[in-house]
């Protein structure tokens, strides 16, 4: 279970007179339960990646708390990381190592024995359907193969909590479906707590039990997909998301822009 309360993060951009402070995350709070897929939905630049980086102890928060299975990330980052598997936006593999070596390496860093890591790698390969990849070098992997390897690498220590930052970026339909299937198995058969960030509503709508809508660094809505639809009075989830995530001004400006573009095209 991941419990986030009042999480805040500021960045300062530029130097000297041009310096300005950007509030990337502003008191975000939500709870992701075990056996449940929680979707973090928000437009680009809403603060999703920053939030997840703070959960993964990569960035220190300016305010608020993150607890992973009751462990405070700020004070015990290593204990918290041992209970998390994170698939971040950066999914680089060592190109000269095989998929198996890439995966087992992380298991060893988690303190597993070589035998245990290899056995776990085999079972992950079965789940993610990546047997043919295992003994190949990561050089020249496709986006889908890369994602599978990176996911297996993040799950090598069988973490109870799984965090995925925009996992479907750059994947084709089949790879996306395979990933969705894997996440369902992890939720239903293993009872994992899964947090999943995305800016694509269809993804979130298909997969998530609970949705947290983030915009401008704030949590603007929380609930299941039907709850959010009911709250906005929309039948279409995309419309509901636009209603929730953007201010009226932003929507107006976007429409005006589109009109201008259409005018130029004409």
């Amino acid at each position, binding site marked *: 279970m991941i419990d986030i309360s009042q999480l805040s993060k500021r960045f300062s951009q530029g130097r000297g007179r041009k310096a300005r402070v950007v509030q990337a995350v502003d008191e975000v709070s939500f709870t992701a339960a075990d056996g449940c897929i929680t979707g973090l939905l928000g437009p680009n630049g809403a603060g999703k990646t920053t939030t997840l980086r703070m959960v993964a102890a990569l960035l220190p928060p300016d305010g608020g708390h993150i607890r992973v299975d009751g462990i405070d990330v700020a004070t015990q*980052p*290593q204990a918290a990381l*041992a209970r998390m598997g994170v698939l971040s936006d950066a999914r680089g593999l060592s190109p*000269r190592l095989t998929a198996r070596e890439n995966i087992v390496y992380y298991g060893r860093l988690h303190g597993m024995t070589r035998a245990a890591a290899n056995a776990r790698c085999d079972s992950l390969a079965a789940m993610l359907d990546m047997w043919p990849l295992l003994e190949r070098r990561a050089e020249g992997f496709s986006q889908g193969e890369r994602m599978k390897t*990176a996911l297996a690498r993040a799950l090598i220590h069988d973490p109870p909590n799984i965090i995925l930052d925009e996992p479907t970026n750059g994947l084709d339909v089949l790879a996306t479906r395979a990933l969705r299937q894997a996440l369902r198995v992890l939720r239903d058969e293993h009872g994992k707590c899964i947090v999943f960030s995305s800016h694509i509503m269809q993804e979130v709508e298909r997969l998530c039990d609970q949705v947290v809508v983030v915009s401008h660094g704030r949590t603007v809505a929380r609930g299941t997909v039907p709850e959010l639809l009911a709250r906005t009075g929309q039948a279409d989830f995309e419309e509901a998301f636009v209603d929730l995530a953007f201010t009226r001004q932003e929507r107006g400006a976007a429409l005006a822009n589109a009109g201008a573009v259409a005018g130029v095209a004409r």
Partner: protein
Amino acid sequence: MNAGANAGANVGAKVGANVGAKVGVRGGLLQRAWTVYTKELMDALRDRRTLLVVLLSSVALGPLLLVLISQLVAGVEKRAEARVIVVQGIEHAPSLRNYLERQTYTIRTAPAGFEQQLRDSKLGDPVLVVPPSFQAELARGEVPVVELLSSSGNQRAQGAANRVLRLLRGFNQEQATLRLAVRGVAPAALEAMQVDERDLADPGSRAAQLSTMVPFLVMMAVLYGALNAALDTTAGERERGSLEPLLMNPAPRWALVLGKWGAVASVAMLIAVLSCLSFLPGQWVVRSETVAALFQFGLHEALWFIALLIPLAGALSAVLMAIAIRCKSFKEAQANATVVILGVSLLPLVTLLNQEGTAAWHLWVPALAQSTLMGRVLKGEALASADVVLTAAVCAVLTVLALAYVARTLHSAALK
């Protein structure tokens, strides 16, 4: 870390028999560092093409250099042994010819256009030009003028010119002695003293003149050996996007830094050992007694070189990593690493430019200290153990500082 394991165990009870509790955060810094080390080393060793180029160039260094030196020496020897003098117009000077032949010199007539050949360094001997009136002037007791042509741009001819001058001085002296003897003056009246030349430099220090470039070349081999691995494990990792996932492991960052540095330093040290040892078989290949006398590089010298180079290899690896961790791409890191390469190649020049010899501060500067001490080893001087310890300690401090910087920068580097 213990507290973390306890908390993990407490929650583990709630989650049930979870692997998380079994895995935990057990295993110390060293075990994690070892994991990183073996992975990075395997990664570096699989980069066959780069490794092959670096290894070949470092192993070929010794034999290649020895072949060059031996060719240089053989050329000098050949000319010294040949006892040849190139003269134009020797037919005008029978008495000079007589003298030269008595000195067992072979007289060769100057080729046509010798002035241009001398200028172009095509002719390796200076040319003596004898005027047609030579013999007549000599007989009249006048002073004929001969010209010795060489070019200061032509090093071979310039080197041989001294030998010819000495030979001609011998002719002058003989003529003078004969004239005085005719007038009944003892030759000793002319010569107040006799000068004997003796070269005090022993073979060892003559060798040092020739082989000053050896420490420099060996250091460059070590630097280039470390360069690729150091950049790949920092800037390369950043560029691939594999640094951020790496930091999401519950491994202390010092374990990551130590493991990475260990792998880079191992490669650099391997290169150091190989390039030093390559001079040993190189000497068997080059069978010149003069080279053997000039360049005394046995197992003893090789071991001293290795002992001096290993701390330097560690320090250079750490410094390169510290520079590269700030760079977003491998290419940017290569551009930045030029500063280190320039430093290591220029610092040894301080000893050449500084006419006052070795100053105390030279031993406090990495690379300069090593090249100074390696120079002493080549000269056959004994090294003071305090000096060796000092240079190693400076390298160790530099290593620790650079690695501390890498550890501190690792997180912010992963995110940008």
